[in-house]
């Protein structure tokens, strides 16, 4: 009852000195707002990484033809992987699925008077298992399709939308380049990748048909998708694949790889490398503004203790004990930092929303951010409030009243 009364009294005092209280809060508001924004960005980035990993496949390794630092998929023009590579990778322990495919982007597609361009991929039946993606309608590429070099295809939703608005594409014939293909299925929708590639602007055809009839690449394979039994084996299996390929391609130790391996671990490292520096920088700003905010509070509190000597003396004359005065000043400091923390949290959320609108960076506002805002405000309030409060509580009432 009594301490509640003293706490209410401390809050009332702050309301009576609005300008002073606000100035004391500014540093805390900035510090907490920055903290909230950083957390939101970090968690947004983590979410993005998770989405990337999931769309890539957490236990997948992509083997690309051609070396160098190039990013993105390899097309048939670069193809240099062999059937022997395929067999050797299959025999590595822990490898579950090895799915070779040919790839050619931006191929012209025609149906009656409709034109579009799409990525065309020549696949084996195990492509569906390797990508965890089958047909939503019709049939996927079968072993027979591959063996007989059939001119059949399965089309993605985007292709369907472009060429067959409102009609059923199954069993119709379209032209890929100059070759006629029969549509035998629709691919499950996958949407856009986090990098922006449209996975639905895709047509898959039998591997053999692609190699011999469409892309003129009978010997080499453009890409291989490997699935391993456990994501923790990714690194080890990647190294083994690398060794096998270097051996098969007769690369001496001073020659660079003529292939590229990509897995989710590398994706995580790339993203983290970019955002890590920024996060450290922002955290530094947040930490500094919290410390500066705390010092500002301490200074203003110390000045106000001198200014309020009479009040302190009076309160003591009226029966306030030293610890009551101490409590009052600590509570005032806490009231300021906690109010500043709440305002800072709100400002931070506003900042995050604006940032999302302007830069379309994904951000996540979490309960952790609120808890952290409160925690830091509380700590700053205590650390920087105690010294002025102690000074106030030790004042001699007779001297203070003079």
């Amino acid at each position, binding site marked *: 009852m009594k301490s509640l009364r003293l706490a209410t009294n401390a809050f009332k005092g702050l309301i009576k000195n609005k300008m002073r209280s606000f100035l004391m809060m500014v540093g805390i508001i900035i510090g907490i707002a920055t903290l909230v924004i950083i957390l939101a960005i970090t968690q947004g980035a983590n979410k993005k990484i998770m989405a990337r990993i999931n769309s890539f496949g957490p236990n997948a390794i992509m083997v690309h033809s051609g070396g160098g630092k190039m990013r993105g998929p390899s097309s048939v023009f670069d193809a240099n992987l062999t059937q022997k590579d395929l067999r050797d990778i299959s025999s590595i322990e822990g490898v579950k699925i090895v799915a070779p495919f040919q790839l050619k982007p931006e191929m012209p597609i025609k149906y009656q008077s409709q034109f579009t361009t799409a990525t065309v991929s020549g696949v084996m039946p195990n492509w569906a298992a390797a990508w965890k993606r089958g047909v939503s309608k019709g049939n996927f590429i079968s072993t027979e399709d591959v063996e007989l070099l059939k001119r059949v295809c399965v089309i993605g939703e985007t292709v369907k939308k472009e060429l067959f608005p409102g009609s059923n594409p199954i069993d119709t014939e379209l032209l890929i380049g100059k070759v006629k293909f029969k549509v035998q299925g629709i691919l499950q929708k996958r949407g856009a990748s986090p990098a922006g590639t449209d996975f639905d602007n895709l047509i898959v055809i039998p591997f053999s048909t692609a190699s011999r009839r469409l892309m003129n690449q009978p010997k080499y394979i453009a890409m291989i998708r490997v699935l391993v039994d456990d994501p923790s084996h990714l690194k080890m299996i990647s190294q083994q694949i690398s060794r096998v390929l270097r051996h098969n391609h007769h690369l001496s130790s001073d020659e660079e790889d003529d292939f590229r391996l990509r897995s989710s671990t590398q994706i995580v490292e790339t993203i983290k490398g970019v955002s890590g520096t920024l996060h450290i920088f922002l955290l530094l700003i947040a930490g500094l503004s919290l410390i500066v905010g705390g010092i500002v509070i301490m200074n203003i509190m110390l000045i106000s203790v001198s200014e309020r000597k009479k009040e302190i003396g009076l309160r003591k004359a009226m029966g306030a004990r030293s610890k*009551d005065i101490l409590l009052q000043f600590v509570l005032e400091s806490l009231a300021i930092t906690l109010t500043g923390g709440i305002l800072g949290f709100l400002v931070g959320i506003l900042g995050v929303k604006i940032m999302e609108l302007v830069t379309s960076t994904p951000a996540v506002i979490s309960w952790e951010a609120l808890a952290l805002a409160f925690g830091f405000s509380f700590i700053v309030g205590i650390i920087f409030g105690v010294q002025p409060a102690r000074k106030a509580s030790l004042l001699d009432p007779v001297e203070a009243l003079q």
Partner: protein
Amino acid sequence: MNKIIRAKSITKIYSKNASVSVEALQDVSLEIEKGELTAIMGASGSGKSTLMNVLGCLARPTSGEYFLDGENVNTFSDDELAKIRNSKIGFVFQQFHLLPRTDALENVELPLLYSERSDITKLAQQALEVVGLANRIHHLPSELSGGQQQRVAIARALVNDPEIILADEPTGNLDSRAGLEVISVFQRLHAEGKTVILVTHDQEIAEHANRIIRIKDSKIVGDEKVQNPLIAKDELENLPIEKEVM
């Protein structure tokens, strides 16, 4: 009779540093009975404020014994002294010492914040009624006249129902009418049985008390009964009417 205050050979020495020290009270002994209206008179620097601080438990005597309501307060801790000040003593100061930006009611509630009482708003209202300011409870000090501010301060001194009211030059910052009004409040409290101690340098103010203790150069130099104290209420009626202050 019940001696509420018994001070024996009180000495108070303020040491500024090792070489300079001021003896503000020298061997002061006095007794005040419950219900007395006493004036402590002296020029500035005579030690009367120090005496008030000691009697009010704001300062500890350097030597000597001080019994308040039968208890030797020399042995009390700081927290216990705070409790004594809170429950047994009501202070009234020359500069009023009201909290700015805080209305009359909240100013009067201040001592109750540090007590264990729970009905603080009601008690504060009653105290303001006693000093005739029931219709000013939500006024800020800046919206009140000097006399009204001092009466808020008296209400604050009264609100914990203390044994003793200690007033240090309570009329020092007031014109004569407002001063008389304040004195008449003290006389009424005295009539109701409170022990009131007025510290003043003004002979005329002192003559409203029943007893005058004179202090000079840190010593008590006189202690006399006042045969016919002035009655502030009567004087107010005889003052030429200027304007309504209440």
